[in-house]
């Protein structure tokens, strides 16, 4: 029996032109004109290709219809490239919205434009710590515009290496390192995402679908909590809007998301490999560092004539109870404003801002976000001395 190697040589090396004299053109490159050819499986490729194309088309259409039938609609994916696209739109005098998803969902760009005289640029991202964005703008020597930063203590004080910080650093890094190919891919992807409902990387891709399999975990396994399902749409300006199906606080979707926020906002237990005291000391150090770094970033922006205001957006129900208990205002918001010296707007300080209820406890519905933004504008103008 011939060995595999000789079999392979037999198959791939076909010196079919070996026995004749190479032409003059072939002599240019010395060696044999064509040293080897890959074998092509001798089957009916045309017929197979036609069937494959038809099957893939039919499966894609079927999957699209299925996704739409269970409530998904076309919307842009929020990724680093879309963020970078908006970050590039920032001019030295821009009004920029940064921070977590509350400022992202709860602020309406049209209302802010009417009230502040300039269309803001939305750079908020879900589940993010706003500090990397703030630091990036502070380091941008040309920037002397206005920053409106959403503040959720658990996210803003997230320690280095934690997901909220990593996501923030990732988007900023992409802005600085984006390749022309990545930029082109985003321009090509947007028209597709605006038309095809199943193109949702964070929800409907194979990896996310596999996560939904009801497979129980080993006891004691430190598995990260699940993220909430799809409940918002996004446009090219990165304006996020809650979908109608989520706007009903007693609806199935809103109730499901409410139960997902609780484990997400509950502090994880200290790691088993560090003593609790050491861990708490490290966390305290990280928070102290974040206070100082933020104060320095605010100072840099102000020194160039820029302005900044921190905003605590509405939240409700069990999530509000949890946040008030674990990150009380007196230990987070108040000292934070004092140390940074920046103005702040805490929604519950103003009756006209505190009457809103978040259907899924963390964000306003699309309709409420317009009204909230309208009512927020005078406070922003006052805080920013506009």
């Amino acid at each position, binding site marked *: 029996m011939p060995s*595999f190697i000789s079999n*392979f040589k037999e*198959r791939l090396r076909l010196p079919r032109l070996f026995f004749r004299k190479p032409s003059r*053109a*072939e*002599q*240019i*490159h*010395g*060696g044999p*004109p*064509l*040293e*080897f050819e890959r*074998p*092509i*499986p*001798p*089957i*009916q*490729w*045309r*017929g*197979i*290709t036609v*069937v*494959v194309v038809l*099957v893939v088309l039919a*499966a*894609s259409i079927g*999957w699209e219809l299925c996704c739409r039938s269970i409530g998904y609609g076309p919307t842009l994916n929020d990724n680093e490239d879309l963020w970078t696209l908006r970050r590039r739109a920032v001019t030295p005098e821009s009004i920029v919205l940064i921070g977590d998803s509350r400022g992202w969902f709860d602020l309406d760009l049209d209302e802010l434009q009417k009230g502040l005289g300039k269309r803001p640029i939305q750079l908020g991202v879900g589940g993010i710590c706003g500090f990397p964005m703030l630091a990036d703008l502070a380091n941008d020597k040309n920037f002397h515009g206005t920053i409106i930063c959403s503040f959720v203590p658990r996210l803003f004080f997230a320690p280095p290496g934690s997901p909220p910080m990593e996501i923030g650093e990732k988007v900023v890094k992409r802005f600085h390192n984006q*390749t*022309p*190919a*990545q930029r*082109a*891919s985003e321009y*090509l*992807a947007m028209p*597709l995402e605006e038309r095809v409902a199943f193109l949702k*990387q964070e929800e*409907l*891709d*194979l*990896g996310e*679908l*596999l*996560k939904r*399999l009801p*497979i129980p*975990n*080993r006891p*004691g*396994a*430190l*598995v990260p909590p699940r993220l909430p399902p799809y409940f918002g749409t996004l446009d090219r300006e990165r304006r996020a809007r809650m979908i109608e199906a989520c706007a009903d606080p007693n609806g199935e979707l809103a109730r499901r998301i409410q139960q997902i926020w609780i484990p997400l906002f509950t502090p994880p237990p200290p*790691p*088993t*490999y*560090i003593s609790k005291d050491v861990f708490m000391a490290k966390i305290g150090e990280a928070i102290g560092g974040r206070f100082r770094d933020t104060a320095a970033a605010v100072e840099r922006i102000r020194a160039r004539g820029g302005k900044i205001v921190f905003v605590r957006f509405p939240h409700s129900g069990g999530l509000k109870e949890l946040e008030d208990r674990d990150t009380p205002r007196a230990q987070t918001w108040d000292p934070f404003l004092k140390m940074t010296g920046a103005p702040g707007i805490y929604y519950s300080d103003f009756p006209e801002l505190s009457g809103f209820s978040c259907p899924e406890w963390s964000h306003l519905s699309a309709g409420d976000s317009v009204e909230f933004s309208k009512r927020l504008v005078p406070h922003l103008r006052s805080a920013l001395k506009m």
Partner: protein
Amino acid sequence: MLFNSLTFVVFFVIVVVLYWSIASWTLRKNLLVTASYIFYGAWNPPFAALLFSTTAMDFWLGRQMAKAKDQRSKRRWLVASVCMNLSMLGFFKYGNFLLQNFQWLVARIGIIYQPPHLDILLPVGISFYTFHSLSYTLDIYRGVLQPTKSLRDFILAVSFFPQLVAGPIVRAGDFLPQLVRPQPLRAGQFLWGLALMTLGLFEKIVLADTLLSGSADRVFDYAGPLVALDSWAGVIAFAGQIFFDFAGYSTCAIGAALTLGFHLKDNFRFPYAAIGFSDFWRRWHISLSTFLRDYLYIPLGGNQVRPFRAALNLVIVMFLGGLWHGAAWTFVVWGLLHGSYLVIERVCRIFFEDKPWANHLGTRILAGVATYAAVCIAWVYFRASDFTIASRMLGGMFGQHAQGDAILSTREILQVALVTVGMISVHCSLRDSNIETAVSRLPRWAVTAAWALMACAIILTQGTSNAFIYFQF
């Protein structure tokens, strides 16, 4: 641009349509050169100039070498080419690494030296295209290749976009002859090329990125001790991930080249079915192992020297092979481990090859399992970013952290197990065959179903544009 990106899809369609609609062979080659430089410049346009300068220099040096009257002059031109290529590679890839090690070394003798941190951006695929280009002057020196008279053809041989940034390492001697005359458009070859591209993307997007990378990343990034199950699951996940990632890229490259009428050699041949480490290296990253064999191991004396020297040669080659992968001592240890494995295998062969039990099925299976396990252990050093992580991982794998944490979900462990069992089964069943033979033997409906399933899975996975692991090399 990445194969798994929309930009590449559009770019590729445009290139293929234009390529086959142009009748002139010269224009077609010009188109491929332009497309290849656009493909490369889409990462960082200035690096295209670096690629061009390396290529042009080697073209000129190759001609000088051919003109040289005696062996000594030839050698001088070769040394110039090797120095030029390796200094380029050394500066961009190893600059900071060398400075850090120099700093450490002088500190041992009491000199405090703080080197400046060179803010060097690594040109994508520099290790690959340097070897593409270097193979040309090396082969001219060895007398197995005449220098080409066409700079354009040489530029294309070095920068041909399917294999430019992550291999296979295509030697100029294998590619230049294919530029002599155009290949006609053959439907079977073109469509088989598309099928191979689908297979490559399926390996990368679905198997490597979706089913395996998450578990590998979580385990290697975890800062604490892990129990044995999670440690092994993470390492086995990485073993699968790196295979599917790199073999996926190579398969895409081979497929894309076929659609344009070019033939690239296999870079992988079912490596996890290897029995022994020399067998593994005949199946894993074949273009690199043959490059190192022909241009380093054989010139060092190969097997034609005393056994001790031959063993030392092996270790030297694998040391440099490890360093080629990255500027870190972890890669060096990975290379040295493989060098040691190869030496141990040789010693075992001397003593046991003739024993009657050596070729029994049971022995072969045991040897295959041992090879896979040892390769996985070596992967720990390849994946870990430092020795602390590597030793923590090995500690977990060998039961030192009985009280460690369990961080993978049952689903993730099942995913890793299923994909690994599937992968090893395919490798074992096709061990002495190749993909073309396997496809030829399948019924038509099975080929159709497999191709359609892979395409559907790619669409369902939506490709999140994760860079291929080997881009960094």
